[in-house]
């Protein structure tokens, strides 16, 4: 049965114009076929004798089904074509076959859910959901002020503050109120961290001689505004070390560790009026130390001025706290959930150091890694600190 059109998949034999034993010339009409759209005369592409009729009048067969056999009379003619398989339903390109959908047995649908009650999914904007997840706020307890009563990000942030909520502002709240809300949100996060995360601590004293020398040389040629501080080196080194030890870079979610594909370093920034903020520097591995220094300056300044966006206070995959300026020797920090690690830097000091049987004086810093024992162990922590120390010993590689 030939294909006689783009949408033809079967044909019905209407009339055989030749009988068994008749000779057939190439191009001669052999049979009349009904294709649903029209009746078409079908020609033979070979010359010979009609040997057998395989499908009788009145029968419908799919395209490609042999309907007659012609014994070719031409000497040296091509062999009779093999029965042609029906064309495949999909183009035979190198792609996976289109799977048939599984047979579905009809069954009773579960009853429609009751009209939304307080227990049903809260109506919140996508952004509000995200922020609520990061701050650990239960949406069911939040009143919504957005379109159609949707819970907005501001509603979530306000809810994260333990004090009484201010009436919904007609205009975006003043920057100071926003900082206060963030501060309270961090406090909530700290409580949760202490409650949920089994912390362990590993400490190391890192040699900064090379780093300090490199900084001095680099900064000698720069104006004050462009000078790089050790903090920028610490951030970069932490990010690179985190890439090497992925168990420390990511989130604890739903009972398991979810590694992050990029490294965004959260910075714990203390505020003059008390409290702290934790803005994230994104894609730290891709940035130069100079760029990081500029970012650091910017983010710290804005954090202190209360001009951070909520999106900047989220997304960190590992955090860093640097209390060196405050004079602390070393820091045992609290991890910011849902992260699984926090790196604490103390003050950079000059210390006596033994090396090669001699005693010298070198710049060092005490670095402490706080780890979530559900996601990592001391072994990993040790590797992280070793990687960190190695990076800081080769500041050009940062």
């Amino acid at each position, binding site marked *: 049965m*030939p*294909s*006689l*059109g*783009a949408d*033809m998949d079967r044909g019905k034999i209407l009339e055989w114009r030749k009988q068994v034993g008749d000779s057939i010339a190439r*191009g001669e009409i052999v049979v009349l076929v009904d*294709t649903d*759209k*029209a*009746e*078409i005369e*079908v*020609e033979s*592409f070979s010359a010979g004798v009609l040997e057998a009729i395989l499908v009788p009048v009145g029968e419908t067969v799919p*395209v*490609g089904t042999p309907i007659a056999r012609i014994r070719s009379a031409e000497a040296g003619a*091509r062999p009779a*074509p093999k029965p*042609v398989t*029906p*064309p495949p339903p999909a*183009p*035979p*390109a*190198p*792609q996976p076959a289109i799977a048939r959908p599984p047979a579905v047995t009809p069954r009773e649908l579960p009853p429609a859910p009751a009209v939304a009650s307080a227990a049903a999914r809260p109506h919140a904007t996508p952004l509000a959901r995200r922020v609520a997840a990061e701050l650990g706020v239960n949406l069911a307890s939040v009143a919504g002020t957005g379109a159609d009563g949707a819970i907005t990000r501001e509603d979530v942030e306000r809810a994260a503050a333990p004090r009484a909520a201010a009436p919904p502002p007609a205009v975006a709240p003043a920057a100071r109120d926003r900082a206060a809300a963030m501060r309270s949100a961090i406090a909530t996060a700290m409580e949760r961290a202490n409650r949920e995360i089994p912390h362990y601590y590993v400490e190391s004293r890192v040699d900064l001689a090379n780093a300090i020398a490199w900084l001095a040389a680099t900064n000698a040629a720069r104006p004050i505004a462009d000078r790089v501080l050790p903090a920028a080196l610490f951030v970069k080194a932490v990010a690179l070390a985190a890439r090497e030890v992925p168990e420390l870079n990511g989130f604890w979610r739903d009972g398991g560790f979810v590694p992050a594909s990029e490294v965004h370093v959260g910075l714990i920034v203390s505020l003059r009026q008390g409290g702290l903020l934790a803005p994230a520097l994104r894609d730290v591995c891709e940035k130069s130390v100079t760029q990081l220094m500029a970012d650091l300056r910017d983010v710290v300044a804005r954090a202190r001025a209360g001009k951070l966006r909520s999106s900047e206070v989220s997304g960190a995959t590992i955090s860093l706290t640097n209390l060196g300026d405050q004079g602390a020797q070393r820091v045992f920090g609290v991890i910011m959930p849902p992260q699984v690690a926090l790196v604490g830097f103390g003050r950079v000091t000059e210390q006596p150091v033994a090396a090669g049987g001699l005693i010298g004086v070198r710049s060092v810093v005490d670095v402490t890694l706080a780890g979530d024992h559900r996601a990592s162990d001391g072994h990993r922590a040790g590797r992280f600190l070793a990687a960190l120390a190695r990076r800081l010993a080769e500041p050009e590689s940062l």
Partner: protein
Amino acid sequence: MTPEAPLAPRDREHALRLLRAMLRIRRFEEACAEQYSKGKIRGFLHLYVGQEAVAVGVIECLTADDAIVATYREHGHALARGIDSRPLMAEMFGKVEGCSRGRGGSMHVFDAATRFYGGNAIVAAGLPLAVGLALADRMQNRDRVTVCFFGEGAMAEGEFHESMNLAALWRLPVLFACENNLYAMGTALARSESETNLCVKAASYEMPAWSVDGMDVLAVEDAARRAVTAVRGGGPLFLELRTYRFRAHSMFDPQLYREKSEVEAWKQRDPIPTFVARAQASGALGADDAARIEEEAAAEMVAAVDFAEAGHFEPVADLARHVLFEGGAQ
């Protein structure tokens, strides 16, 4: 425009060339019909059987530099122009070795090397394109001819009138070659045109308009040669080629609109056997020549089908290639 006495081939060379060209088209089209029935060619397939003399006779008069715009019934023109039957059949099969990377299929044959601008499936849409190609030649002082093949059905479209007018107004070197096979799909000329004398319509645009017997390849060639000479470096010209297609409009057309007897009558004027007879009578072709060319053509089409069968489908990953030009800014 049809000469009073039947023409004869100039010499054996000439006769062989014309016969080979027409026979190759005939056999190619028959191979396409067979492959379509087997499901190897899909979509729409419009065959040129019966009209071979037109493409061969006109294209015989062009130089390699001239341009051709054709319709969806363009396999014959493509072969006459020199596009190899292997990539042409591969194009029918949708294989990447086809002249348009298999992208176009039967209706969209393109070949930059031979200035073959399709392969256009919208009736009459090729005419403005041809006008533009000729405009570029006029503006760059090039003596090239653009031949635009179209069916008589296109003369009902607005674009036909717009293009004829523009070509004449701006005196552009376009040869408007109208293949009048009397039916636009299933609609006879008399049912679609208030004025069925096509040359009268064309001449109203102030250009020469000639009519010639499209079943006589020598008459076609003679007229086309004069036409191309007039157009080259000059203005447009309309050439009506009176012809007939022996097969249906496309593969699944039951041909309810015309009588079998009419088809049979036109088959008596089949351009190929009538040319063979004339060429043998004039001595240009020997007794064995036709059979030999027949064998060669048959073998060539077997090879073309084999080539197409062995070809590959373009990787799906390349689907979005060539949507935009992949070279740089010009």
